[in-house]
């Protein structure tokens, strides 16, 4: 164009804000991660890699990595599988598909913090409905027999359900063996509807002729056609859904902060919560920044993996 200088006014503010609010903070975090900076102190000392050394040697931080990775490894596969499963079921329905779609998408929309509080209440070991429902199955022989495995000839007391009926049902969020799993359950509850919608979009782009072609080639059962056509044709969707779910689950914060505060005994001490606790609560901004940088690297790796697969046009 050249004849007008309008573009300065158009891109100028955006460039300025990008530098100030996105790029500068990353640089600041990288620099501060090498210091012992605290708000309110007049100065700070450069301490080199000390924060990172602590991060990779101290027990509480190894618990942090364990919690974050376990959470991701629980939420991603299950929410992706549920998303794909419900998308397949819904797309093959004659009627009612739209209704299920809206219901499963509801948790994606609803304020997670608020719903987490409701879940906490439902999971309350004394007045909560979850344990009430589980307990009510103990004296109904059909349910008891099925869930404790006594129908199949196993010793009911050996099973999880049978022994819980004998003794008591778990404290869920209050028990270090169950807390992270419970938080992950809420995460799955919230996320799988999102994956479902992405898979539904992916499914509509699979050409119908391929199914007929597969059938002619002798793929008679639905399962064979799924293996032959649907699964490979969903390649790009898989990559997208898996990376998005991983990045999102690395960022889990709301449920942890509101329900467990990282406990019991740091079993739910996930990265973003650790960052918040160190950086904001305890004012150890150097340490908080080091966690930030490690988190950033995790997310960048995931994104690069995604870009790599997308560029290879994954269609197996």
């Amino acid at each position, binding site marked *: 164009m050249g004849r007008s200088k309008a*573009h300065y006014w158009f891109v100028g503010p955006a460039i300025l804000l*990008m530098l100030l609010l996105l790029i500068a903070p990353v640089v600041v975090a990288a620099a501060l991660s090498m210091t012992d900076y605290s708000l309110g102190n007049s100065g700070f000392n450069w301490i080199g890699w000390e924060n990172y050394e602590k991060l990779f040697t101290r027990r509480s931080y190894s618990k942090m990595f364990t919690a974050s990775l376990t959470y991701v490894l629980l939420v991603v596969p299950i929410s992706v599988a549920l998303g794909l499963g419900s998308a397949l079921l819904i797309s*093959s*329905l*004659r009627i009612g598909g739209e209704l299920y779609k809206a219901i499963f998408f509801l948790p994606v929309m609803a304020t*997670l*913090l608020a719903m987490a509080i*409701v879940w906490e*209440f439902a999971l309350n070991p004394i007045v909560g409905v979850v344990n009430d429902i589980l307990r009510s199955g103990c004296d109904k022989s059909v349910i008891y027999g099925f869930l404790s495995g006594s129908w199949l000839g196993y010793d009911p007391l050996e099973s999880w359900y049978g022994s819980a009926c004998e003794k008591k049902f778990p404290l869920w969020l209050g028990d270090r063996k169950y807390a992270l799993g419970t938080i992950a359950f809420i995460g799955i509850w919230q996320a799988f509807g999102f994956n479902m919608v992405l898979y539904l979009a992916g499914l509509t782009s699979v050409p119908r002729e391929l199914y007929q072609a597969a059938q002619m080639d002798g793929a008679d059962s639905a399962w064979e056609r799924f293996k032959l056509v649907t699964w490979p044709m969903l390649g790009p969707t898989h990559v997208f859904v898996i990376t998005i779910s991983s990045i999102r689950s690395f960022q889990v914060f709301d449920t942890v902060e509101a329900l467990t505060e990282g406990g019991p005994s740091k079993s739910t001490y996930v990265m973003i919560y650790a960052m918040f606790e160190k950086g904001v609560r305890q004012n150890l901004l150097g340490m908080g920044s080091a966690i930030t940088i490690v988190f950033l690297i995790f997310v960048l790796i995931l994104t690069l993996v995604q870009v790599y697969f997308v560029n290879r046009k994954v269609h197996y």
Partner: protein
Amino acid sequence: MYIQTSWLGEFFKHSLLLAGAVVVLLPFYLMLSYSMKSPAEIETNTGGFFGAQQIMTDNRCVKVGNPEEDCLKRPIVYNYTAAFKEAPLVRYMLNGVFVTVSIFIIQVIIALPCAYALSKLRFWGRNVVFGMVIFCLLIPVHAIALPLYIMLAKVGLTNTYAALIVPWSISVFGIFLMRQFFMTVPDDLIDAARMDGMSEFSIVWQVMLPTAVPALLAFGIFSVVAHWNDYYWPRVVITGNKDLMTPPLGLRMFKSDMDGNEYGPMMAATTVIVLPLVIIFLLAQRRFIEGITMTGMK
């Protein structure tokens, strides 16, 4: 689709999906139900969905010194009035509306001209700017929260509306989305406008803005939902000042101020905060699902 539909198969699929729907809806059901029940009914899990709605005594009202006959209430009335009295819910909601709407408007004011320039104007450095946008797309918001918090604290802006709004004023995702959209707008439209003597500014706001309404709507849904539900950022920059709290943060405060057994009012407050978005969602499902998945990459 490719699964042959028999009545048995259809029945089987519906039962699986129904079981899933029950688990998904359970907390919504509980939230609504508990917001209407008396403490006794909540404790013993009785009263069905609506509760018996038997007149109950409001203990707190009696403690303040009112005669007992003035403190008799239906549980549903008790729960909702207590929710609005204990917590400044109206204030929280207004804060939420103010913050989300401000963020969206500022994002559009910044992003739309930039997207227009990146897609329709040729100037030196255009690719560099676009490269910068792509690079910034890679930065997760959680990773810049701490340094932004320090920067805001340094200039004394924590515990202000500005702290809630300014960090979100730039949406690189919005720029990217709008640019992709403007690429599909024919150049003839802009040339015609220039021929009519329109300035570049009026082209952006009078020609491009109206054509971008579908994309803006999707982006708006994404932006408003994300910031209405956001808990992390308000938690970091607002400490203790209830006048500035957004709905999720206010609810969290309500929870920690609560003395253990006030589940009814608590669930009433939760209902008030969750319901507006849920109702709008149910009214405009398709647009919401499109908007959020289309913009799901962030």
